[in-house]
């Protein structure tokens, strides 16, 4: 059995909705509603889902950029959710994040050098000369040039900015990198470079990745295991190959069939889902997917399916697979 680096148990994030003159709570947005998974050392775990499914919120809670409402997060066996500020800061050296929006995540008033150097200063690593050297090294690693160090973020394209974000995350040699849509802003040819780079870095430095993305092709490429999220829950989780070749949950099946394939000859039976994702402030009763599910049964609208292991290493939350147990 592989060693666990991060264990997430029944993690929840409920945002209150306030309304009225007295700002009373009138509802809850269940952004993340009971997510459980384990990250093993050196692996890449992909978290996929459409917008609003809670994948980014999950990522942010793992770094405690958002405080979880409920649940446990164990990093290297240490409970993270109860750490005080000082210990948390110490721990964050081991967990770094690459953010989704390369425009919002870099301070426009700082030079690239200052941006990448900042985590080194915060964690008191190296003297000034060493830090400068490290910054230039990092810039080269992510495909930029050392002379870029003196420039400001607005002088870079969206793609290049994301590379700066990656360089910043790598600066303190973390164990775990939470990458939230790290390549969705990049062009295809650059995206491939960055994915290869992430893979190389993983091999070299023994990094563990939590890779959050909506692009199923990218996730398949980079992940060892994948969890598919829908309305705040993981609906299916398995080894990457298994999930893509033999998906069990109707949502995963529909999601996979919806991806346009760069091959005009490739005929396939597309499952086109009707309607939109329901609002997480008012999720449907029973299985959250039953309103759009082509295989929905009576039981689906009333009973929440349990997230269970249906085959070794293959978990899903769907009533279709419940008789198997009997």
């Amino acid at each position, binding site marked *: 059995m592989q060693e666990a680096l991060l264990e997430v148990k029944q993690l929840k994030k409920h945002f209150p909705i306030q309304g009225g003159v007295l700002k009373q709570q009138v509802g809850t947005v269940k952004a993340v509603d009971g997510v459980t998974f384990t990250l093993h050392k050196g692996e890449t775990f992909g978290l996929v889902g459409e917008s609003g499914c809670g994948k980014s919120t999950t990522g942010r809670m793992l770094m405690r950029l958002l405080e979880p409402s409920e649940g446990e997060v164990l990093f290297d066996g240490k409970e993270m959710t109860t750490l005080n500020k000082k210990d948390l800061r110490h721990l964050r050296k081991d967990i770094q994040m690459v953010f989704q929006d390369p425009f919002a995540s870099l301070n426009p008033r700082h030079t690239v050098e200052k941006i990448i150097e900042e985590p080194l200063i915060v964690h008191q690593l190296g003297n000034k000369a060493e830090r400068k050297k490290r910054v230039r090294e990092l810039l080269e690693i992510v495909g930029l040039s050392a002379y870029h160090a003196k420039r400001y973020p607005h002088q870079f394209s969206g793609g290049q900015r994301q590379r700066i974000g990656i360089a910043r995350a790598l600066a303190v040699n973390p164990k775990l990198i939470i990458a939230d849509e790290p390549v969705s802003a990049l062009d*295809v040819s*650059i995206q*491939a470079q960055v994915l*290869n780079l992430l893979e190389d870095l993983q091999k070299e430095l023994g990094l563990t990745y939590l890779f959050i993305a*909506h692009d*199923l092709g990218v996730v398949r*490429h*980079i992940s060892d295991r994948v969890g598919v999220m829908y309305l705040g829950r993981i609906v299916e989780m398995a080894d990457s190959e298994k999930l893509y070749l033999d998906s069990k949950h109707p949502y995963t099946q529909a999601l996979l069939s919806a991806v*346009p394939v*760069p091959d005009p000859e490739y005929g396939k039976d597309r499952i086109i889902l009707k309607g939109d994702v329901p609002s997480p402030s008012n999720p449907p009763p029973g299985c959250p997917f039953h309103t759009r599910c082509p295989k929905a049964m009576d039981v689906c609208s009333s009973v929440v399916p349990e997230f269970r292991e249906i085959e070794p290493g293959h978990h899903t939350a769907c009533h279709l697979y419940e008789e198997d147990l009997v």
Partner: protein
Amino acid sequence: MEQPVLKVSGLETHFFTDDGEIPAVDSVDFYVNKGEVLGIVGESGSGKSVTSLSIMQLIQAPGKIVGGEITYKGENLISKSEKEMRKIRGNEIGMIFQEPMTSLNPVFRIGNQLIEGIRIHKKWNKKKAWEHAVSILKLVGLPRAEELMNEYPHQLSGGMRQRVMIAMAMACEPEVLIADEPTTALDVTIQAQILELMKKLNKETNTSIIMITHDLGVVAEICDRIAVMYSGKIVEQGKTQDIFQHPKHPYTIGLIESVPDVRVRKDRLYSIPGNVPKPGSIHKGCHFAPRCNFAFDKCYEENPTLLDAGPAQQARCWLHEDAKKAAVLERVKS
């Protein structure tokens, strides 16, 4: 031979910036036939959006169309006055933009925004325009169309907004629909719905579509023909099947290879070395040469023209000057 509905020839759109004149679109030629779906593929900065804005004459300073012709129904759009263009935009050539939230006005109801164009172009009264708008909303598959007319954009989801945008573009039954990254901001399941809708509209109304996108999957899904753009130029064009099965330009080959496929996992993604050049930074030779594995002396000296690389396929690459050199590409692919 079919007469193209829209023909672009030698289009040059330059931006006059402090850093000098930047050729964002550099002698671009293409055409689209009646009822055809043409894909223009390229990465950011390749000039694909500027091309589409040029067709609509929506280029703003410091940009300017400095050369070429855009022929629509036998008339050159470039020589048209702003007043004449207004009659064409939305009426004859419709456009769908990428971001449905920023292209709808948040303070007006959907209905008001939809009938505005219809009333201007068709000179219909409010009631007739309203009824037409409702029927168009139904055509694009929106439920409860009558109620939607009285709602504001923020009350709709991203997919619904994009349907409204398509409805708006289709409202005056244009001959040509230019769709600039229409599904990029959408989730895959919604993207599948929108692509299905566009295919349906293309078949039912025989509208020509120019699909501008960076997503090769989308192109393979919907387009009959493709033009691949790189650094302001079309580097390859041909039928969709030919281009995906036998790409002839090293850039196209690299682009197709570098997409992670949902169907199979490749060991390592092919990646094109280097970065997309800044427009105007390369003055001599082929713009792709610095990133190209096949570049030879001539590539750095002279910019290639579009050379025939197949029965209905052209590539802007010196390799296709003689068949022996072109064989290199086949070997690499296998």
